[in-house]
């Protein structure tokens, strides 16, 4: 029920984004049904009547396509686009979902048949996670394209320098920190970006410092980009007698889905994979440091929103963050999954933007920040 409500709201959100776009009609792929319908009968009607009826037909058509994307689209990805007459994009989404399912089945089967063997699982799990992510993203893309018909909204060019201050609320039954003051910044120079951040609890002795460095390998005009990223994180849990230190490296990609078809313009999919190593340092004398590898994997789906905004929904397989890992229910599923997240960034005009985020795992994290930007803006 929760999942269904999420996707209903997502569809409404997509439609909301579409309603706000500029030049909606011209941005759409041609709709053969509507074109045929309008070509024969317009002579007998006045122009405003035709426009009104076209708008009504388009809306009804879009609702049918969206319903098809929800079902049977949840099983046969691309159904919404088939219903909208966009067979080419429908085929691409179906193929993408098949690739995702194939990866997931390969990864899942390798884990099942080897009993999650120690030498196989660190390859099988990335396949499983990325496969499920691609499978899920192809469905979300179908829902998005069916509901919006695509938008002309494009991704904003990141500023050269940005800095933000904010607040985060963390509801974690295991830790009492609860309130964090956050400071984050970003510096870009050509292909290189540096992102230092600091989160410090306001009523507990707990803080986390992180620095990310990335190098852009590829950027397309439509917004598709691939970068390599490394990061170091130190998280002090002084009230609990330990600290963690993580070093990691990953490949981070974003695909602008407008490349898939015009109805998907304005949407994107994120995929990143990587490895890290975490060390726990204990304050108790005699308790030696404990280390372990860390598998990084994130899959997401997002869309551009009006006035340069951007929203994304993602699954992150890591469980070393404040959000930890998800318990889908009281009965099943605890102990394997990472966390879910939702992010939105909205320029306020001028050089300011607001950033909102929420993550759900073993803890619930909600944060908001005011961002100031310098350098080239669009």
């Amino acid at each position: 029920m929760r999942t269904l409500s999420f996707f209903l709201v997502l569809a409404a959100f997509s439609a909301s984004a579409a309603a706000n776009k500029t030049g909606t009609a011209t941005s759409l792929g041609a709709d053969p049904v509507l074109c045929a319908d309008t070509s024969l009968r317009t002579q007998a009607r006045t122009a405003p009547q035709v426009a009104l009826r076209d708008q009504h037909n388009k809306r009804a058509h879009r609702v049918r396509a969206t319903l098809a994307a929800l079902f049977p689209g949840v099983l046969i990805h691309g159904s919404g686009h088939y219903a909208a007459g966009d067979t080419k994009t429908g085929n691409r989404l179906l193929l993408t979902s098949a690739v995702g399912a194939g990866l997931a089945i390969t990864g899942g089967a390798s884990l099942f048949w080897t009993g999650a063997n120690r030498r196989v699982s660190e390859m099988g799990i990335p396949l499983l996670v990325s496969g499920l992510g691609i499978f899920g993203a192809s469905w979300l893309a179908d829902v998005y394209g069916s509901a919006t018909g695509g938008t002309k909204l494009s991704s904003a060019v990141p500023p050269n320098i940005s800095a933000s201050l904010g607040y985060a609320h963390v509801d974690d039954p295991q830790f009492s920190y609860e309130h964090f003051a956050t400071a984050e910044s970003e510096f870009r120079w050509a292909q290189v970006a540096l992102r230092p951040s600091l989160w410090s609890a306001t009523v507990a002795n707990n803080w986390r410092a992180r620095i990310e460095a990335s190098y852009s390998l590829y950027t397309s005009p439509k917004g598709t980009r691939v970068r390599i990223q490394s990061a170091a994180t130190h998280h002090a849990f002084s009230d609990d007698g330990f600290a963690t230190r993580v070093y990691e490296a990953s490949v981070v990609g974003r695909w602008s889905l407008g490349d898939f078809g015009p109805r998907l313009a304005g949407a994107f999919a994120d995929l990143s994979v990587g490895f890290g190593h975490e060390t726990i340092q204990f304050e108790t004398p005699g308790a030696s440091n404990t280390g372990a590898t860390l598998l990084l994997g994130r899959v997401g789906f997002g869309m551009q929103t009006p006035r340069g905004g951007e929203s994304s929904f993602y699954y992150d397989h890591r469980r070393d963050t404040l959000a930890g890992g998800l318990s889908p229910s009281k009965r099943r599923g605890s102990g394997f999954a990472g966390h879910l997240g939702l992010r939105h960034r909205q320029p306020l005009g001028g050089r300011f933007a607001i950033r909102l985020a929420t993550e759900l795992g073993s803890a619930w994290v909600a944060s908001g920040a005011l961002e100031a930007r310098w350098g080239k803006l669009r």
Partner: protein
Amino acid sequence: MRSIVAFALLALTLCGCLRPGEERPDLDLDVGVASIEGLSVQVVDGQATIRELGPNEMILWAQAPVLELHISPGAPTKLHLTVLNCMPGAELRVGQDWTPSLQTDHPTQCVFDVRLEEAKVTEVLIAPRDYDTAESYRFAVMGDVQTALNTVDEVFQSISAMPDLRFVLCTGDIVQDGEYWEYELYEEQLAYLRIPIFSTVGNHEVRKPPQRWHQLFGRFSAHFRFKDVDFSLVDSGNASIDPKTYNRLKEWLDEGRDRVHIFGTHFPPRDPIGGRNASFRSRNEGAKLLARLAEGRVDLTLYGHIHSYYSYENAGIPAYVSGGGGALPERYEGIGRHFLAISVSPAGLGEVEFVDVDSP
């Protein structure tokens, strides 16, 4: 503004279980307490669950080698007391008088007739006479039977073939789905085990309402002392330990701080193969648990969940994963059904022996 409202609506749909196991610590508090008209019973620290209580009869399922009972009758009566999952050779002590068990069909079934006087709380102890003698002994550790319940008798027979083992610690996942028929089959298979088994729950027991385990076996988390060595079995059935259980664990760690203390739970706080993540749902919580165990000077940590065998250290404490009860194994490592036989004394840990069930 509209997009921010939509974001908020989407965020509200992301709500899940932050404390999926929160019922269980509360249920633990009810274990071992029962009364009927004219008779009330309390098993100290919930060390046994009361399966049946009648005016002249009581049946207990023990979750510890040593049981202390406070029995308050309304009138003089004779109580026929049956203890299942009992230590072989256990006797009943009232005051300074020890009474041996009546003859039974199985070594882990003890039966006593207890005379109760009116309006007086009778304090009863049920234990082997050497329960507080500080000396070395061995116990077994196993976990993760799941779909192999119908063949677990072979594991039990292997354990029973080692006469110096005093009891079995089980780290959970005895059953696959928590169905009643599985628990019935488990109790039938226990006929092949000649020593008691004390277990916490794994993620498979919690697939069904916790009342099932609670009614049949009692506590999800238990602490006991035997021969001056402390044991804490803690419920991590949801890949996490509930904050209320952490509070109890703190008391147990404080009590056992100056003694040898052995800790067991189902999920390893940290998978020795980190990227596999067969561990706590939050790595930070896993680290918190290890920090507490190190601070509490725990001497040994025992885990299950991973259907294999691993020996390593966490926070400087020796750690063993033993999930060889028969569930789908981690393949191609040459590790099959097994259990551990661990030697311990008040002076410290002894040898940890890996016993292969299928290659004697």
